Each structure stands twice: as structure tokens, then as C-alpha cells.
């Protein structure tokens, strides 16, 4: 994997498309074990991200990710807004000065994002939140020295499958306790879309 400014922007634009396409799906996930706004929140936030990135001209990845972070922070709201904001802010900080980001440094930055998330949300792994998506993906990039886009996809898929069977103990879903087992966590599902977009950009699958 090699991420440059253009690819990063592409990644975010594709993520936006996925959020718009999955807006109702994510909201539907948030109805039985949440409050039915997650898709609306993410679609609103990434729509703004896309316009923001369209307007600007960027010379480094860190600036792109900083604008992503700040936009999510100020447009998403709810629990997920500050959390995604924090994650992308950590990525931005850690990737400062990098021009062509490779697997290992991306993995380190993701690890920072995971600590940021855990600190902000006071959640550990296994509590059925987006943390359970970000954490295994960070490990994935730090693991095998030659990971592939398909590998990322299958890692993300298996993480998602695991999360579905967990019991929520943090966030609004925690009120639903055991009833959350078998329901997908909406924040994990939206995180999946972010990394699915990354994998597609990485593979060059996306012709956008």
C-alpha cells in the first residue's frame, strides 16, 4: 500500500459515496439498539468532508486528514462525531510530514487512533463499539509485512462478524445489554465502510 495526497482524497470521497448509499442502512442498524440517527449523522458529516476537500488544495496527507477530522468533529455530533474526529485527528498528527504513506507507518498511525478512541470514549476492546473495528485493522497493518487490499477487506469483514455477536457495554447500545447480541453495531458498520473504501482505492478498483 502506498497512500499519497490524491489517494487520500479519493479514499475520503469514496467513503462519502458509501455513507450516502448506506445512510438508511446505518440508520436502520441504529434503530433497534440505538436511537436511529447514525446513518443521518455519518451522511451529513461525510457530505461536508467531501465538499471541504473539493474546495481546498492540499500538498500533504496530514492536512487532508486534519480537515476530515475537524469537519467530522463539527458536523457529525452524537457519540460518533467526536470519536471519528479524534481518530482522524490522530492519523493526521502521526502522518505529519509523510508524503507517501506505507503499510507500517499507516499501522502505527492507526494504533495511535485506536488509543485516542479508547481514551475519548473510555471503551476497551470487546465492548461492541467502533473500537472493535479500528483495533484489529491497526493490528492488521502492523502484522504481516506484505498485506493486501483483499486481506484488509477480509480482516474488516471478520471483525464485523465478531462485533455482531458481542454484548454492548458502552454507548447507547449498552442500555440494550444482551439484546445487542446478533445486532450489528452501527459505528462498527460505518467504520467498515471507511476501510472498504480504502481497500477499493488501494486496489485501484475505483475509477473515480
Amino acid at each position, binding site marked *: 500500500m502506498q497512500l499519497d495526497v490524491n489517494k487520500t482524497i479519493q479514499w475520503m470521497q469514496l467513503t462519502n459515496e458509501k455513507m450516502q448509499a448506506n445512510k438508511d442502512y446505518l440508520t436502520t442498524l441504529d434503530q433497534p439498539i440505538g*436511537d436511529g440517527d447514525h446513518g443521518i449523522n455519518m451522511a451529513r458529516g461525510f457530505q461536508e468532508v467531501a465538499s471541504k476537500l473539493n474546495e481546498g488544495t492540499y500538498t500533504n496527507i496530514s492536512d487532508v486528514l486534519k480537515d476530515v477530522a475537524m469537519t467530522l468533529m463539527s458536523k457529525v455530533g452524537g457519540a460518533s*462525531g467526536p470519536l471519528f474526529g479524534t481518530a482522524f485527528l490522530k492519523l493526521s498528527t502521526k502522518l505529519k510530514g509523510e508524503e507517501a504513506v506505507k503499510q507500517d507507518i499507516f499501522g502505527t498511525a492507526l494504533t495511535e487512533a485506536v488509543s485516542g478512541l479508547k481514551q475519548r470514549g473510555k471503551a476497551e476492546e470487546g465492548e461492541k463499539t467502533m473500537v472493535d473495528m479500528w483495533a484489529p485493522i491497526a493490528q492488521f497493518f502492523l502484522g504481516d509485512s506484505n498485506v493486501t487490499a483483499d486481506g484488509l477487506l477480509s480482516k474488516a469483514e471478520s471483525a464485523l462478524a465478531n462485533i455482531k455477536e458481542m454484548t454492548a457495554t458502552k454507548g447507547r447500545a449498552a442500555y440494550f445489554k444482551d439484546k445487542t447480541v446478533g445486532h450489528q453495531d452501527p459505528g462498527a458498520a460505518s467504520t467498515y465502510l471507511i476501510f472498504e473504501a480504502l481497500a477499493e482505492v488501494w486496489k485501484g478498483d475505483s475509477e473515480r
Partner: protein
Amino acid sequence: MKKIINDPNEVVQDMVHGLVTAYPTKLKVVPDTLVIAREDAPVQGKVGLVSGGGSGHEPAHAGYIGKGMLDCAVAGEVFTSPTPDQVLEGIKAADGGEGVFLVIKNYTGDVLNFEMAAELAEAEGIQVEKVIVNDDVAVEDSSFTTGRRGIAGTVLVHKIAGAMAENGASLQEVKRVAEKVIANIRSMGMALTSGTVPAAGKPSFQLEENEMEIGIGIHGEPGIERKPIASADDIAAELVERIMNDMEIPKESEVAVMINGLGATPEMELFIVNKKVQSILKDRGIYVFQTFVGEYMTSLEMAGCSVTLLKLDDELKSLLAAPSEAPAFRI
């Protein structure tokens, strides 16, 4: 979905505009935000009070702005906590030099966004203190979970902390009484039907025609039990009992009572619930200092109600009885 709205994505903007044009001598909107403030905010020399949260709980929170209550309310999207930059604007608009006090309901989103705003405000040199309201006894409280939700009891925190601030108390003093209220307040709700988030377009959950849910949250989060609709008397008794199981209210205590409608419940039904609540309290030898019946913390057009009990001492009584000019809470 049957709603009197324009664009479902613009309901909060439209509402905020409609609110400040309804009370132009009392309220103003901070330009380019969804932050509503007292017309004369910031009030110099007074601790500023800021609250807020997702929209859809009207009259919470902007209806509680006014002399003797809040200085500012920050409106998020429907059921979605406002973002840190918006809360920061609220803090700035409320800051009269004596610091700003945040009343936060205990939801992950509210806590995260308000805390980040507090950090930003402190970085700008504004002193900030906060309380987190968690009056809903439907949720088990544990340090390993998100903990109890903040529901209708929050309004009485606004009232009492607001009166304290209006008296010229310091930030620490305001915090002290707010914490005292939180230690002594408990609520429990129930619903018959779900509300519908405008942008979602369909009800958040479904209850059968003969079903009710005890302990439901104001975002439609689940309660303790779904079961056949009981009589108003049985419902009132169950809500009071669950509150009293959680917080002892000895004989001869004085309490404030709030019977809160969740949006679609006729006021008639709230008074019917009140009848039973008052008779239970009387039977237990508990004195009612003041009763509030109406819509205070709603959940869009949810049908249902909540009962809140607040144990009072002399200080809380005098603060509760102090004047308030907030449109939705006139005393």
C-alpha cells in the same frame, strides 16, 4: 411519517428560528449557530449556565432559557448531541466573567461533545465546571457501563442551579447545589408509542396495540420490560415504586414531583397519573412541596410519561420556588 415540517434535514434550523421569533425580547440566536441565548447574555458578574443536547425534546432545552434558569442552550440535530464547536459558542455566549456551568445529560455523545467544548473553552481562558445528570432509574448504574441516562429530572437541575447562579453564587456553589439535586433526584418513564426522527422517516421502534414499555429512554432506548398496558394507577404505582426502591424517601420528607409527558400524551392522562402519584406519597407520609405536570422533556411524538421525584431540603426548596422567566418554566 406525518409531520408539519419543511425539509426534514432543516427541522432544527427552522425550529430555532421559530423559537427566537416567538420570544424576541427574551431570546436571541448566536449568529450562524444553533445556539440560543438569553437576550441579555452574557450577564456580567453571574455564572453562566449552559445546557443542550439533541433536539426533539422540546421545550428542552431552549425553553428553559431565561432569568433564573439557563443562559444558553445548544441544539443538536434531532436525537444527536451538538458538536463541540457549537457548545463552545454557547459557553462563550454565556460567559459573564464568573465562569460557565454545564448541565449535561448522561449520554456518551453529550458527555464527549460537552467535555471537548469545555477543554476548548478552558484553552481560551474560560473557567468551566459541569455536572452530569443521570436520574433515570431504568438503567442499571455501573462503572463498567455508560451508566444511567439523564431524563426529565434535568429540568429541575436547570431550575435550581439557575436560581443559585441568579443569586450571584460562585461557580463552585452552583456546582454544589447541582450535585445535591442530582444526588436526590430520580425518574422513571414508560411509553405507549414511538416517536419518528424526521430524517429517518419511520418510527424508531414498534410496540403492539396492547403493549407498553416500562423504563424507556427519551431517544426510544429500551426499557426494562414490555408488557400489556396496565391501568394508569398501576403504571403510576410501578414508576413510583421503582424510584423508591432506588432512593429511600423517608416519612415526613418533602419532595417535588414532576409528571412529564413525552410528546403525544394528552394532559388529561398526565393528571390521571398525578392523582395516583399524589395518593401514594400521601399514604407514605411524604409531603409534596410542589408539583409540575406537563411536557418538560419530550421525545418527539412519543406517547408516554415519566415520573420524577426530588427530595428537598430548605435550600433546594427556596431555590425551586425562586422566580424564573424561562418561557417553558415560569415561576
